[in-house]
């Protein structure tokens, strides 16, 4: 552990972590969390700005100076209540928000040195409450006797459910998997977001009276129309972007080539990292390549390292500046010995007679003019083919809209990529009584944006059930 108490008051309190050498072979959480003293010291770095940039950087406008002030005063219980006004999953957001682009990216202290560690502080008070809090259920408005269905239990769905429960609605969540939590449970690994945190959030919702129906694939087990017939007056769809993208290069169906969705679902949801205690197996590669450079790719690469790989390579066709992962994840991955092959594009996979992958052929790339996304387009360098050995390849090049639900629902307008069209202010879709939000509307985005969409939809559903469409 490399925690050192900061000497100067102005220095950012370091987050104590498991050392890279140890953690790269275990699934325990990497950052260990602040002590109350460190949290107070860090909180005292906040200047309590009159016009705080940090709040503008936060997609759900958490009152950051206010909650930080309460930490500095040692009022942890009051502090968490301040955060809850805007954000119902702070233990999650404190861990996974790309703070450098959001709250911390706009913090004035960051102009000269390291910004206030807003994410670490948010995480601290949330963990403090979970461990030491009263578990007291917030006051609930009188029952309105109206039923709302929430489809999907990712961050967007959980937010809608939490808000509407408090407003006095009867809320039922329908989740396709056998466990709630969406990407927080099947995608983001234990070493970054312990599953107990998500389950305790869900248990809290249930304690408040929310009904949870797992194993319910909406579109198959029950349809949107049938939910209306069963008396649900409003339905929120937050089914995420659950369609894996592949590279569409030759050899991609060889054994040992998995989508990140499959690889991470095996590892996280099915707990394959504890095979054979848990029955689900996971391929253990010696030479692993991961295609892509977002959070999903970092999570896959770090999982492979923890499962005992000799070498793990991130292969990405653009350059370091374009890597979409959180800065902290890239840093952690590098510390753990993950190698980065940038400006490299796979062109085909090579298999053996048993149909297992043994290698990958790549081309070197260089950056050309900016493309429609504003990022410089990678162009292949002629004659630069080379081969890379691998016995496991994880494809983490993005996700699309899963058509299972949308195809089974009439009257739901979709855009050309199959995502649901919803009003950005209210979440209303083209179908009366149906709202949507999160990744199924925006495409793969972030936890906090999905939660923000959930909050807006909950407000709009409340208005609708009070005043009409």
């Amino acid at each position, binding site marked *: 552990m490399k925690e050192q108490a900061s000497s100067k008051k102005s220095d950012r309190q370091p987050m104590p972590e498991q050392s890279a050498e140890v953690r790269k072979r275990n699934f325990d959480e990497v950052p260990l969390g602040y002590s109350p003293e460190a949290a107070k010291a860090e909180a005292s770095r906040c200047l309590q700005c009159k016009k705080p940039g940090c709040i503008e950087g936060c997609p759900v406008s958490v009152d950051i100076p206010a909650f930080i002030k309460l930490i500095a005063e040692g009022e942890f219980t009051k502090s968490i209540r301040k955060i809850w006004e805007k954000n119902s999953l702070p233990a999650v957001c404190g861990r996974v928000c790309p703070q450098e682009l959001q709250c911390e990216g706009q913090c004035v202290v960051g102009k000269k040195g390291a910004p206030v560690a807003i994410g670490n502080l948010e995480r601290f008070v949330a963990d403090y409450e979970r461990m030491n809090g009263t578990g007291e259920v917030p006051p609930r408005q009188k029952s309105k006797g109206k039923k709302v269905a929430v489809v999907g239990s990712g961050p967007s769905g959980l937010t809608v459910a939490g808000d509407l429960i408090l407003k006095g609605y009867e809320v039922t969540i329908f989740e*396709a*998997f*056998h466990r709630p939590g969406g990407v927080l449970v099947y995608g983001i690994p234990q070493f970054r977001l312990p599953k107990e945190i998500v389950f305790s959030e869900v248990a809290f919702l249930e304690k408040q009276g929310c009904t949870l129906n*797992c*194993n*319910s*694939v909406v579109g*198959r*087990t*029950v349809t949107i129309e049938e939910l209306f017939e069963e008396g649900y007056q409003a339905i929120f769809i937050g089914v995420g972007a*659950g*369609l*894996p993208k*592949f590279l569409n290069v030759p050899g*991609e*169906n060889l*054994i*040992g080539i*998995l*989508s990140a*969705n*499959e690889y991470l*679902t*095996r590892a996280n949801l*099915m*707990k394959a990292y504890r*095979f*054979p*205690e*848990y*029955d*689900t*197996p996971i*391929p253990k590669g010696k030479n692993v390549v991961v295609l892509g450079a977002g959070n999903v790719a970092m999570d896959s690469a770090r999982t492979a390292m923890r499962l005992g790989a000799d070498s793990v390579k991130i292969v990405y066709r653009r350059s370091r500046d374009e890597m979409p992962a959180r800065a902290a994840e890239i840093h952690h991955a590098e510390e753990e010995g993950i190698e980065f092959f940038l400006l490299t594009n796979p062109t085909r996979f090579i298999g053996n007679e*048993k*149909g297992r992958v043994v290698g990958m052929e790549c081309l070197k790339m260089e950056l050309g003019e900016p493309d429609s996304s504003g990022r410089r387009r990678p162009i292949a360098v002629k004659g630069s083919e080379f081969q890379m050995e691998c016995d496991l390849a994880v494809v983490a090049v993005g996700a699309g809209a*899963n*058509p*299972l639900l949308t195809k089974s629902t009439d009257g739901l307008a979709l855009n050309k990529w199959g995502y649901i069209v919803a009003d950005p202010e209210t979440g209303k879709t083209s179908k009366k009584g149906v709202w949507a939000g999160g990744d199924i509307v925006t495409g793969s985005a972030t936890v906090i944006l999905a939660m923000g969409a959930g909050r807006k939809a909950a407000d709009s559903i409340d208005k609708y059930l009070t005043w009409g469409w």
Partner: protein
Amino acid sequence: MFKIVHREEMAGGTVILNEIEAPAIARKAKPGQFVIVKANETGERIPLTMADTNTEKGTITIIYMVVGKSTSLFKTLKVGEGYLDVIGPLGCATHIEKLGKVICVGGGTGIAVLYPITRGLKQAGNEVVSIVGARSKDLLILEEKMRNVSDEFHVCTDDGSYGHKGFVTDVMKQVLSTQKIDLVVGIGPVPMMKFVSKITKEFNVKTLVSLNPIMIDGTGMCGGCRVTVGNETKFACVDGPEFDGHQVDFDELTKRLQAYSEEEKSCWQNYMCQIQDV
């Protein structure tokens, strides 16, 4: 929990039938669809076709062959106990219509998958020729049920202990050479489906097969179940599990089914040692 209300052992205890309380699924299920079941907290998600449903009782029936760790564990479940999770109905239903004369050919536990489809085709007014096979007489399942929904019925055993000695494909070839057939539905082990498709192709008769790749979610989110059909990658859990047999790359499927053979073996051996210790 999804309670088992009825249980039968078939084919000398190598095949098990469970009737399970799952009213929401029973209400919606159609022939050709499957469920994913998970026995307990540490269990694997295993896809199994619904061999039957009863909407009044709110039950579904699964029939599985005991081949590895999970199915051995399922075998230990008694009436009154049950599965922690049952998810479905998944996959596309068989497109059932009146075509004329059809052959339904099944092998091993494939017959369990074939039965509801055969019944559907019969109810839709088709003339049904069924050909079922097993390694030997005592391994044959659902004979009576299949016979009851067929106009013409053939049995084959590899060892000749019952019916025709030889493969289902031999009998199928005879039927195809003597009668005009509008559709063949072939469900069984991968090699059987491969040969059925090869022969029907020679006769130019449309053929449906039901594929059983390894699955996780069953909703199209992992891509683990991908199969190549007509040179395109398909997800069997949402695009299938039934496909045009003439387009399927069976060799790829055979290989992909071996993806975890090492792990499966060790897991099963572990488990069998454990239960023998008790």
